[in-house]
């Protein structure tokens, strides 16, 4: 296997609140290979966004990336750079943002500046990293708008975001993210705010662009159907931890963690009789403050037994490429230190 492009090691992002320490991301390991799409899936509040924002260093106080966390980026066989160690206002960090790693956000309405023209907002990224020439930056903006399939790209350059539909705005966001041909694209639920047909168009577009631009995608969603469409590998997140990771087929065919299994049961199938109810997962995701050391899913798990309430299971790779954090599959206990 080639060296991973992005390697997240023991990432812990904590919010230091008055009520206590909120462990939004608590010991995540992930590898993203060149050209690969990794899907991150989990319910609302499981820490997906905080993890993605940590990679871009967009977490603001009271949030902090804990010491010992590593976010290693290795481009073109160079020595890996630890993003977690870079000072917040450093040039090195700015050189990564937008040039090597780009991000698309969930809300295409509010993620674009309402008072700047679309063309300016895309060209700005190019002006920062790849050219000093305004004409050239504009040409790049025009090219990217064309690539993301916007009808009438010339005119869209001069448009303001509020003049565009939600789907078009998200295409603009993608165009902006692609301005400098990044190696990694982080997409945080980019289609959630869109209606279903537009959602599929955007997904297909992203898959095409990934191949054209030769980039890797970290795709965050709470929708398993979306993951099935775009990802090769899937990581299931629950309360700041990864509970299961495998290639997409294995996740769908042989899910092992009870949480993954119930996520799968909660998606609608074609042909399911309408009287048959969708199975929602009982309970809600708690706030990850002052969690006891034990399996985090135990309270909501139908197969939980005594061990689950006493010690925390470790993430164990049972079969190659398939890791599960559950005592049903391994008795290994997580070492806390």
């Amino acid at each position, binding site marked *: 296997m080639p060296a991973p492009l992005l390697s997240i090691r023991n990432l812990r992002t904590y919010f230091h609140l008055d009520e206590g320490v909120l462990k939004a991301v608590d010991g995540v390991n992930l590898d993203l290979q060149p050209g690969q799409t990794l899907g991150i899936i989990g319910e609302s509040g499981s820490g997906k966004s905080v993890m993605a*924002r940590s990679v*871009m260093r967009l977490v603001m106080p009271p949030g902090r990336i804990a010491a010992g966390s590593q976010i290693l980026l290795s481009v073109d066989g160079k020595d890996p750079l630890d993003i977690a160690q870079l000072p917040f206002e450093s040039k090195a960090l*700015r050189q990564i943002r*937008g040039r090597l790693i780009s991000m698309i956000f969930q809300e295409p309405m509010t993620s674009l*500046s309402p008072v700047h023209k679309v063309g300016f907002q895309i060209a700005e*990224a190019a002006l*920062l990293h790849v050219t000093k020439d305004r004409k050239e930056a504009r040409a790049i903006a025009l090219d990217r708008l064309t690539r993301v399939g916007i009808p009438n790209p010339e005119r869209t350059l001069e448009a303001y975001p509020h003049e565009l539909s939600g789907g078009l705005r998200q295409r603009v966001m993608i165009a902006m993210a692609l301005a400098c041909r990044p190696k990694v694209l982080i997409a945080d639920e980019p289609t959630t705010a869109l209606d279903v047909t537009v959602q599929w168009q955007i997904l297909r577009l992203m898959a095409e662009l990934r191949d054209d631009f030769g980039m890797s995608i970290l795709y965050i969603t709470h929708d398993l159907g979306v993951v099935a469409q775009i990802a090769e590998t899937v990581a299931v997140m629950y309360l700041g931890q990864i509970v299961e990771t495998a290639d997409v087929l294995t996740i769908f065919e042989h899910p092992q963690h009870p949480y993954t299994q119930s996520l799968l049961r909660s998606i609608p199938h074609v042909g399911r009789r309408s009287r048959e109810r969708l199975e929602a997962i009982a309970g809600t995701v708690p706030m990850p403050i002052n969690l006891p050391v034990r399996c985090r899913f135990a309270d909501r798990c139908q197969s939980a037994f005594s061990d689950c309430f006493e010690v925390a299971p470790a993430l164990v790779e049972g079969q190659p490429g398939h890791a599960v954090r559950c005592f049903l599959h391994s008795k290994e206990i997580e070492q806390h230190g």
Partner: protein
Amino acid sequence: MGHFIIRRLGYIAILLVLVSIVSFIIIQLPPGDWLSAYVTRLRVQGATINEEIIQGLKRQYGLDQPPVRQYFTWVSNLVQGDFGYSFSYSRPVKDLIIERLPATLGISVLTILVTYLIAIPIGIYSATHQYSVGDYVFTFLGFIGLSVPSFLLALILMFLGYKYFDLSVGGLYSPQYIGEPWDWDKFVDMLWHLPIPVLIIGLSGTTGLIRVLRGTLLDEIHRPYVDTARAKGLRERVLLYRYPVRIAINPLISTVGWLLPAMFSGQVIVSIVLNLPTVGPLLYEALRAQDTYLAGSIVMILSLFTLIGTLISDILLAIVDPRIRIEE
């Protein structure tokens, strides 16, 4: 845009007619009128005034006409640029106002400029350094500025200026320059007299503006588009001014037109205390003396400024914020 402006000018004309009616009625409303007050005053001083003289005066000032006639005479003269005659000053209203308008406008515009110059940097600082010592200090000063009445502040500053800076306080220039033609020395002397009135008149507006800017900017700083800009690799400082500050300042810049009338009314008391030759004290005196034409004309001019200011604001707002469309 052109249609919009023309239509708005039409509204302004209609509103001015309404304002003229209302102000004329209100000024006439208190019992008695200027003439009877004048006659009483003369009689108290021992003068003998017979009915004939009174009738003569009434005719002279048009007071023997029914109010409706008086109103129409006034308005039709106004349109022709004749503002009428001031009873109490025995001079044309136009002369009285023109004498005081430059100082009034000058102080107002200067105050607005100073207000922005102080409020915008402090507002940005407070929002970007929320809960810092500096933020608390400005918040504290702001509350004082909002809660201390301006006349009190005027008295305090006059005292301090007199005691420690040897300033002849009050007025716009030192006594020896009153009535003198303008020259460099008089101008410099005036510059020395400006800071106190400008500070006092601008204070509550400045603190208000700081509050507003701090609040909006705090909201804007956490909007998703700021993260988008940051994720592009922009420097924090560039990002701050290009996005959230730009958006938070828009409403302040575009509402500048609304400040002008606020300045006029805000400076009445201060002008009286500081003895400034502005329109404010003139209006106050005119209202007290029921000097109908003088008071009415000032009210009309202030209304005109207000309406034009609002129009300018609306146009500016449409220019700086592309989301606002002016319907044709």
